[in-house]
């Protein structure tokens, strides 16, 4: 009988604590019945017990039958999990790359420091990726458990759907992969962080003597101009973030997003026009303090306004293209 108890203990160990006692009690009774049926009244030998247990199956197998199918993350949530995981890891890689670039640009004190940053980047990326993976998986696991316990039935599909509502297969120019929007979102967030919180990082690093010491940091942006333009930029960036999130979710350009894109481009044109007429964005002293760069200074001043003309033209073409594609998408194909 000792063998039987060893067997039951091994099963119980693998069962959820709440049901353990009850299941083990029932199994003890059932195994006793099976043993009786085998011995037909004579005393049970070790061999009898062994045979009954062998027929019953290994503890792990029996316990797994009681537990039913168990998932870390079930099929209901796997698609969402996978999408979130990809976005998080991509965003994190982008963020770390930007941080590396910023680090390399701002801290140029020693060559060794730069090399160290690059060498350390890869283990850091790996650690961060595993951490992000762990957090995302952990959170989804908790949601899965909560959903299973409360018998919350999150339906795989929406309860009712109409095949006629299925969107048309997007033509080639309407397709949007996940990478484009994610990259756009990462860079927009980075720009918002940089220009709103750390505009001083946008600066020329200039070394007065040979070597990397005595670094002079000359801010590139004029504070007055920046404070005039930044609110407008923020509006544009936020609109861009919303638009890119939509594109990421839908995976395609649609009439609404095309028109919204054209509208943000028109807004950008307005901002560019304002910037062309308004105060110069760059610090007036930026090139004057750099004796080697006087040529650059004259070139810069003469081309500054033309640069905006160029931007406006390019943006306008893009906006028109967007409207044309939006209208074209509306016209049914014959």
């Amino acid at each position, binding site marked *: 009988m000792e063998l039987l108890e060893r067997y039951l203990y091994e099963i119980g160990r693998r069962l959820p604590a709440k049901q353990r006692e009850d299941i083990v009690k029932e199994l003890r009774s059932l195994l006793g019945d099976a043993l009786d049926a085998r011995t037909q009244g004579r005393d049970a030998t070790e061999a009898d017990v062994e045979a009954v247990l062998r027929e019953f*199956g290994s503890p792990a197998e029996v316990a797994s039958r009681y537990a039913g199918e168990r998932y870390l993350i079930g099929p209901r949530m796997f698609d969402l999990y996978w999408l979130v995981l990809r976005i998080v890891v991509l965003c994190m890689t982008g963020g770390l790359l930007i941080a590396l670039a910023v680090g390399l640009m701002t801290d140029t004190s020693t060559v060794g420091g730069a090399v160290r940053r690059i060498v350390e980047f890869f283990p850091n990326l790996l650690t961060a990726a595993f951490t992000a993976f762990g957090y995302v998986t952990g959170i989804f696991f908790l949601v899965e458990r909560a959903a299973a316990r409360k018998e919350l039935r999150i339906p795989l599909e929406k309860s009712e759907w109409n095949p006629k509502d299925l969107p048309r297969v997007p033509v080639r120019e309407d397709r949007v992969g996940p990478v484009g929007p994610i990259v756009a979102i990462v860079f927009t967030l980075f720009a918002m962080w940089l220009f709103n919180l750390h505009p001083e990082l946008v600066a020329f690093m200039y070394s007065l003597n040979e070597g990397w010491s005595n670094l002079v940091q000359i801010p590139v942006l004029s504070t007055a101009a920046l404070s005039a333009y930044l609110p407008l930029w923020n509006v544009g960036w936020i609109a861009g973030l919303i638009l890119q999130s939509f594109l990421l979710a839908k995976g395609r350009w649609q009439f609404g997003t095309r028109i919204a894109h054209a509208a943000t481009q028109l807004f950008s044109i307005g901002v560019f026009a304002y910037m062309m007429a308004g105060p110069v964005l760059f610090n007036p002293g930026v090139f004057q303090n750099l004796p080697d760069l006087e040529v650059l200074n004259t070139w810069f001043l003469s081309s500054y306004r033309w640069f905006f003309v160029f931007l406006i033209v390019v943006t306008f073409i893009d906006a028109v293209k967007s409207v044309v594609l939006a209208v074209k998408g509306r016209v049914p194909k014959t």
Partner: protein
Amino acid sequence: MSENEATLGALVSELRRGTLVLSVLSQLTERQYGYSLVQRLSEQELFVDQSTLYPLLRRLEKQELLDSDWTLEEARPRRYYVLSPAGRKLLADLTNEWDRMVEVQDRLLGRSGHEGKKE
């Protein structure tokens, strides 16, 4: 050849898995404990793995299709299972579905009816 047999085995066990609940419910109009149910089923030539059947009984009880209680008077404490009212209703409905399925399959297999069982 053995690959064919393996495919057949997998399909047969899938069919059996599908009908197992109906088989079990059909035998539980009277109280049964686990081992007596296994015996009853094997007397009718339905051989079910014990480690499959016992967890199934608990699941059906959790779904409130079976009622259970422990009996202490016998040689050892035993848990008896019996159809609950909901289980009886389900057994009737499931039996109807089964009849319809058999009918349809017979038709598909080119048999005129239940009695037209050819070799």
